[in-house]
């Protein structure tokens, strides 16, 4: 840098630079003015022609949405083609009169008018909006004959989404719906706006939402010359759309059907996982709903009904609702006791039928107790006292620390939207959860409730299935997933969703084997024995009962308690015991004792999956499989 200058020299240089800045500003504006002159004078004719008649219009070609099929090719979501009557409000002189005239040719209901009104509020007036969907052949013929009378009204062939199996697996498949303002914002944020020109539907829930990117495809476009009335007269150039990819699931639809039927009209959920891959074989949540209702904008009365129903059919209980695991938590507790060295397999506890702690008596459910109880027996007879004492010996930090790697209290990362975390209780969790200092303190008595799966514990059926799958898979935990392949609709090229092992929990093989043996014992001689009487395969299981309503000292008698306050019924199971192909968790809301209502559902699922046995009342072969070939283009 130059030598230090006098203030006068500095000022002179500064003013010199100001002059340079002034000149640069003039040059910059001069260039802009030249650009304006070029655009507005030299090329005025060109641009004014382009603006004035806008002859060349770009028409997006919406790609066909990909199909969703189960692992055997049964179609769960497809498209079919139908005619729709569309109207462009800006090209119609008298909208009311036009609709009135149209209603003489085509059946137009008040709800169609209402929907059009709503669409007009949301869209620009030169957009073509649907007035009536799915016209019958007769209506199409009547309209075509009189078409000349209706400028601005067009008949268009469009693809509609269809869920051929109705309410089966509806929570997993999800549904599409018209793009609303929130979706639009998301689309703009993802810089995908161009690809959604012309598309008016988007995945709203389930797989339709999580695989939206694959299913949607890539929008093509046509450059067409239009006449003054806006009708296309000549095609100039065409870039075809690339159809969306098909998504093939790990789900076995037959298993799904058997499970959903087994629930009957009870509320609950089931998740079945292949332990060696994390692939979801079945995911049921009852009651279900019909996703077809949503495709063209759900009618207000249907929406109200679904929303106000106290059974909450729209809720995916399998991944969203968290319940205390009850005694299904005990195998995990027992494994934790062995792993942390707090118990040996042979250590025996004399169970008096209760455990006293801090002036409170924690009761066993068998009056007088189970006598001498070792670890094996504690699982088979589901002895509470054993786990009261164990939880107290382990302490809450050791329990939470052992359980966390199994996925309890965390989102599993499954490829479905709307998963909840559940609660793995710990002093830290309590500190975060509660505001007042007196509520934040962890009490020793709470640890004891946690030990038998009650208290603050709350896990989703998915978390229970995932935890069990990891246990029986020798500690290797996979990220659960429902999609198996994504298939390019044109080339047939398959992209496999690879099983993703998330972690290996350090466990001793001898410990795992003991727990598995004890769970087999549950179904042979313990709480699950009745449900699995005569099963030709070896199956491990555990019943559980989650308290909904706490009886202050009174005795729980099912018949005397209102149905919705009854306990939730759990059952977890895996089979075959030596090399498990399936691990599942069943929850029946207010189902009472676990062995009563949840275990029989698990039995039906395992009988089908392992033996191919189909219960009475369900068609043995797959009626939907044949339909998969005839899918609308």
């Amino acid at each position: 840098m130059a030598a230090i200058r006098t203030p006068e020299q500095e000022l002179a240089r500064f003013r010199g630079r100001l002059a340079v800045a002034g000149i640069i500003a003039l040059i910059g504006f001069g260039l802009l003015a030249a650009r304006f002159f070029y655009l507005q004078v030299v090329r005025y004719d060109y641009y004014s022609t382009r603006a004035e008649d806008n002859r060349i219009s770009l028409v997006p070609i919406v790609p066909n949405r990909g199909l969703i099929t189960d692992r055997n090719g049964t179609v769960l979501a497809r498209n079919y083609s139908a005619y729709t009557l569309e109207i462009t409000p800006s090209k119609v002189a008298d909208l009311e009169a036009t609709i009135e005239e149209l209603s003489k040719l085509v059946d137009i209901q008040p709800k169609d008018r209402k929907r059009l009104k709503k669409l007009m509020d949301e869209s620009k007036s030169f957009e073509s909006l649907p007035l009536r969907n799915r016209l019958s052949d007769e209506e199409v013929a009547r309209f075509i004959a009189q078409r000349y009378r209706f400028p601005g009204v067009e008949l268009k062939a469009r693809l509609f989404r269809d869920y051929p199996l109705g309410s089966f697996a509806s929570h997993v498949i999800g549904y599409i719906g018209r793009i609303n303002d929130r979706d639009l914002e998301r689309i703009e944020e993802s810089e995908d706006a161009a690809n959604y020109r012309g598309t008016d539907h988007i995945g709203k829930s389930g797989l339709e939402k999580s695989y939206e990117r694959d299913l949607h495809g890539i929008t093509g476009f046509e450059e067409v010359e239009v006449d003054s009335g806006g009708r296309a007269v000549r095609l100039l150039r065409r870039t075809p759309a690339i159809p969306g990819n098909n998504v093939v699931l790990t789900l076995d639809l037959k298993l799904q059907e058997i499970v959903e039927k087994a629930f009957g009209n009870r509320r609950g959920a089931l998740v079945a996982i292949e332990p060696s891959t994390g692939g979801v074989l079945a995911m049921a949540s009852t009651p279900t709903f019909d996703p077809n209702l949503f495709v063209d904008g759900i009618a207000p009365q249907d929406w109200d009904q679904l929303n106000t129903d106290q059974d909450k059919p729209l809720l995916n209980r399998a991944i969203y609702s968290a319940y205390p695991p009850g005694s299904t938590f005990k195998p995990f507790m027992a494994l934790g006791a062995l792993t942390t060295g707090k118990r040996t397999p042979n250590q025996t506890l004399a169970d008096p039928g209760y455990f006293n702690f801090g002036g409170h008596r924690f009761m066993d459910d068998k009056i007088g107790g189970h006598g001498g109880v070792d670890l094996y027996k504690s699982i088979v007879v589901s002895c509470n006292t054993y786990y009261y004492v164990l939880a107290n010996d382990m302490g809450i930090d050791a329990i939470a620390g052992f359980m966390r790697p199994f996925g309890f209290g965390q989102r599993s990362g499954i490829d479905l939207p709307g998963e909840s975390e559940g609660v793995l209780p710990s002093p830290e969790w309590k500190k975060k959860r509660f505001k007042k200092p007196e509520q934040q303190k962890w009490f020793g008595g709470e640890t004891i409730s946690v030990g038998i799966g009650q208290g603050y514990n709350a896990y989703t059926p998915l978390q229970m299935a995932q935890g069990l799958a990891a246990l029986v898979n020798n500690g290797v935990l996979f990220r659960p997933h429902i999609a198996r392949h994504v298939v390019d609709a044109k080339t047939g090229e398959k992209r496999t969703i690879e099983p993703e092992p998330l972690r290996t929990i350090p466990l001793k093989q001898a410990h795992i084997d003991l727990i598995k043996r004890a769970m087999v014992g549950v179904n042979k001689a313990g709480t699950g024995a009745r449900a699995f009487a005569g099963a030709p395969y070896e199956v491990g299981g555990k019943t559980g009962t989650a308290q909904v309503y706490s009886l202050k000292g009174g005795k729980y008698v099912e018949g005397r308690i209102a149905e919705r306050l009854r306990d939730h019924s759990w059952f977890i199971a895996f089979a075959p015991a030596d090399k498990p192909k399936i691990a599942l968790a069943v929850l029946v809301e207010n189902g009472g004792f676990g062995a009563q209502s949840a275990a029989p559902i698990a039995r039906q699922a395992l009988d089908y999956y392992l033996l191919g046995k189909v219960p009475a009342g369900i068609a043995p072969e797959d009626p939907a499989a044949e339909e998969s070939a005839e899918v609308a283009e």
Partner: protein
Amino acid sequence: MNPRLDPRKWLSFLLSPLDGPLMLLVLALTAYSAVIMVSASPERLGTLAVNTAVAFFVMWVAARIPPQRMMSIALPLYVIGIVLLVAVALFGDVSKGARRWLNIGITRIQPSELMKIAMPLTLAWYFQSREGMIRGRDFLIAISLLLLPVGLIAKQPDLGTAILVTASGFFVLFFAGLTWRLILPVAVVGIVGIASIVAMGDTICQPGVDWPGLREYQKHRVCTLLDPTSDPLGKGFHIIQSTIAIGSGGVVGKGWGNGTQTHLDFLPERHTDFIFAVLTEEFGLVGALILVVIYILLIFRGLFIAAGAPTLFSRLLAGALTLIFFTYALVNMGMVSGILPVVGVPLPFVSYGGTALVTLCLGVGMLMSIQRHRRRVGT
């Protein structure tokens, strides 16, 4: 009559901080903005009035703050700005793929906006504190002070604001006497670089070619500028349609409220970044040139104030603020007319948008203060 209620006294209290020529030019621009808004987006006139009132109040307050006071808040403002930018990087809200906003409970703020003013203020303060002994080392320090926030803003990513903040800091360096031996090579490299991008556009815009240091969407914007027809449904659409709007305006325009591009919804963001396209479609080349002349007058008034400013601090600040207005105007009109890439830079004092208007009026207020206090400050 009670002297406190004397209307002439009140008027003088209100008007005395303001600089006549600057005030008239800003009023002309906001009036122009209102006229265009009547056509482009009449439902926003109310908010425009509120925004303008707030911005003018900020300008008036800024014009009353003496330059010495500004100097004393420069460094704290800079530090606050950096802290907020770091907070954005850590906890900011993501919108449109970028992390720019900080949620402070009642409202969301965009700290990078603050830096547009804090940057020149800080650098001018730094050079003032080294007055009479400025060496090469000082420029290095100043450049580091500049690059820290620019890096944070570019990482958000917000290319438009990063360019504006870089420019605002560079202007201070330029006026402080950064040697031509550094400026010229950078300018030459830049021009050669841009020329080669234009020349090789077809090759480097192929999908799959990664541009070092730039995000995919930034590459896309440059490529779309080179060939808008490559993406006519998406990003090229803005440029194609705004160019048609400008070109079809002709010499005198289609008339107020008659712009077909505007009213048939072909123009994107017609009340914000692309408002210039509305103006030129409806008022033609004449309308555009009137706007350009107002900007030239504004900039020359600013340069004149800088020339007469008594201290190094006020000189540097006035010069830099003036060139920021120039940069805003040049970049915005350049992008709308298709010769610069689309980066989110508003048309100064004309585009709808409260934050930018307040920032700009704050800048004008500071210029007014420098002009008003030019004699009272002696060194």
